[in-house]
């Protein structure tokens, strides 16, 4: 059965089941790894012909929903560090405002696609690579010694001022690093149509030294507020949030996230991390090839009414 639905803001007609399926698939991964899933969904939306500006803005809206059900599950299991989440959130809101500004500026110059794709390749490449080798080492180490890897290392992060106690994470560190991480993730949320979990989760583990258990819930907590703010900014400045598109993606996504959260609790942290790393690297490779290989169509059309 084919059910076409016309999207009023994107102004194209798409199969409704395709959208539900995409939402569900990405939702499962989102629940499993605690990432918003945006870094997979946004490129997928490009592939099915959704205009990039609409994909980025609508994806922000959809991430709110898929993360909301995930965060509920984590609150119940007490795996959210609200204090850390709030610090990350303050940075995130500032970053999102800057990011939307940057997005709109680059859109008028015609380089927004390049920036988005390059950011994907660079960030996914670095993060994926780091996570892959780190978790490979962790797995090998735990096989040799039989014990878990030592988590808390003292690095430069622990020598900064404005220290604060984060009880749920068992940390006493400066608020500066989480604020900077928040700003950074906020910028990415706005320009790449992602929640930013793929940056935030590793940053929380490797830079802040947070326990893996609370990392997922805390990042989801920050993500829902930052992406909600991003959605409002895109809706009021670009008019690019497609409500029916978001609803279809989230119906699939919310159910998927619930399934994913359950799968995630059954897997070991190291296995989870290596799976995520492989996925991140795969998306990175695909995007890198797109930039390196000569495209079949060298020309592209855009609205000419801009300044």
């Amino acid at each position, binding site marked *: 059965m084919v059910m076409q639905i016309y999207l009023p*803001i994107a102004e194209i007609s798409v199969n409704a089941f395709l959208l539900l399926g995409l939402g569900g698939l990405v939702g499962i991964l989102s629940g499993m790894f605690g990432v918003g899933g945006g870094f997979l969904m946004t490129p997928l939306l490009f592939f099915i012909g959704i205009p990039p500006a609409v994909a980025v803005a609508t994806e922000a809206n959809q991430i709110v*929903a898929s*993360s*909301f*059900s995930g965060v509920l599950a984590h609150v119940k299991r007490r795996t959210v560090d609200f204090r850390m989440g709030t610090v990350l959130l303050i940075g995130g809101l500032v970053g999102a405002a800057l990011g939307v500004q940057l997005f709109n500026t680059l859109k008028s110059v015609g380089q927004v696609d*390049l920036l988005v794709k390059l950011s994907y390749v660079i960030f996914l490449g670095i993060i994926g690579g780091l996570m892959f080798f780190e978790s490979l080492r962790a797995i090998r180490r735990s096989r040799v010694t039989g014990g878990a890897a030592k988590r808390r290392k003292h690095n430069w992060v622990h020598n900064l001022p404005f220290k604060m106690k984060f009880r749920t994470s068992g940390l006493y560190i400066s608020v500066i690093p989480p604020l900077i991480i928040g700003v950074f993730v906020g910028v990415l949320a706005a320009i790449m149509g992602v929640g930013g979990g793929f940056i935030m989760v590793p940053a929380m583990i490797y830079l802040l030294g947070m326990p893996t258990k609370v990392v997922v819930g805390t990042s989801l907590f920050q993500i829902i507020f930052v992406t909600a703010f991003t959605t409002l900014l895109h809706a009021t400045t670009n008019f690019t949030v497609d409500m029916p598109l978001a609803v279809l993606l989230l119906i699939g996504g919310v159910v998927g996230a619930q399934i994913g959260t359950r799968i995630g609790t059954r897997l070991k942290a190291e296995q989870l991390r290596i799976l995520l790393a492989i996925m991140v690297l795969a998306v990175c490779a695909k995007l890198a090839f797109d930039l390196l290989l000569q495209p079949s169509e060298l020309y592209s059309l855009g609205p000419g009414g801009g300044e």
Partner: protein
Amino acid sequence: MILRHLLVVFALLIALPAQGEGEAVVAGLSQNRVAITANFDGSEILIFGAVKREEPIPEAPPLEVIVTVSGPSEPVLVRRKARRFGIWVNTDSVLVDAAPSFYAVATTKPLADILRDVEDLRYQISIPRAIRSVGAAMQIRDSANFTDAVIRIRTDKSLYQMLEGQVNLSESTLFNTSVALPSNLIEGAYTTRIFLTRGGTVVDAFDTELEVRKVGLERWVYNLAYDRPLIYGLLSLFIAIVAGWGASAVFRYFLRS
């Protein structure tokens, strides 16, 4: 349905006073509005008409019919990628002054055989002529490549259609054709033009409008998004959160039972 329309045309033919000068075209569309609904998946419009004349049908050259359907014209910024530092990036760009968002040309015979270049230039009938690109030549040396790209990309998306030989003409009097509007339509006033030609010269022209509009829920969402963006944004979030919370609650309920 078609028969009824044809009867209307005949009634018009009889009712209209004679003009006594050559041939004139009378035509109609199967619909004057295309409504974009939630499950809009393209639409087909039927264009039909007749040639009105006082004198007997002239022998030669033969009468030919050209039908064009065009969407709202808008400026288009065409960008070209080139290899820089090993990756493909947008470099040159050309602003095409006006290109129709949709354009279809249906004819009785290959366009080149039934329309002279001078007439094409005057009435802007063929696809390249329908695109206005005056400033492009000043912006870049190979500006033709950019207008070709507009045609190529839009033809791939069925937004530009060359339907040569798709107009049925019988007895040099009655004609009909159909144009498939794809699902990726832009809203606005679409113009249908009909040209009668003899020996490559336009004998008569006729034009009528076709309104393409979003309706119902589509209309409501679109208007809200542009007229009340903040409320629209908040509503989008509210729906997202309610659905997110609701679906997880339903899911948990089913797992327990």
